[in-house]
């Protein structure tokens, strides 16, 4: 079975998000381990991957659209996205709760910001994986 444009789009988002934001977190972890704890020091480091992510996602979708005609979203694509989001959104919720707890115990802002970012990244990655599983294995079980 050939993948639809929507499924290929999810693959592009998964690979590019993991590669680009994963690289950000590796560098950020190194900086944090060296004692860099001011949020402003991470801003340039964060802008580069975000811009890179936009470029990679745009190029990836253009390439896929050129090689295969986009067939549009239908009800199955929407249901798969809703169900995947419903299964993965708790990760972001846990991250927000952890960040709020961090605020209560006066954790450095840089840790709170990264807790939120990491939970957002993990939540998105989980959503992409759930979507791909539903596309491949179906939603009947």
């Amino acid at each position, binding site marked *: 079975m050939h993948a639809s444009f929507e499924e290929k789009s999810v693959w592009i988002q998964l690979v590019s998000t993991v590669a680009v934001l994963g690289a950000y977190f590796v560098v950020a972890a190194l900086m944090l381990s060296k004692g860099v704890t001011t949020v402003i020091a991470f801003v340039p480091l964060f802008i580069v991957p975000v811009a890179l992510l936009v470029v990679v996602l745009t190029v990836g979708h253009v390439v896929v659209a050129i090689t295969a005609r986009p*067939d549009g979203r239908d009800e199955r694509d929407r249901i798969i996205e809703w169900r995947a989001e419903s299964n993965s959104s708790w990760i972001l919720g846990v991250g927000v709760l952890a960040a709020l707890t961090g605020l209560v115990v006066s954790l450095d802002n840089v840790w709170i910001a990264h807790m939120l970012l990491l939970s957002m990244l993990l939540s998105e990655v989980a959503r992409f994986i759930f979507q791909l599983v539903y596309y491949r294995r179906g939603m009947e079980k």
Partner: protein
Amino acid sequence: MTQQELADQIGVTRQTVNAIEGCKYSPSLEVAFRIAQVFDKPLEDVFQYGAQPE
């Protein structure tokens, strides 16, 4: 009739028709009725509860 032809007539992607055929996706009532209309058959002739892929 090809999957693509059916997909075009009922307004979904070919992959969705493929998933319905393989019992990997249960279509909405609207799509189920459209499929039955295309084949000019009653709904229960096209879809059975608990059907397995052939």
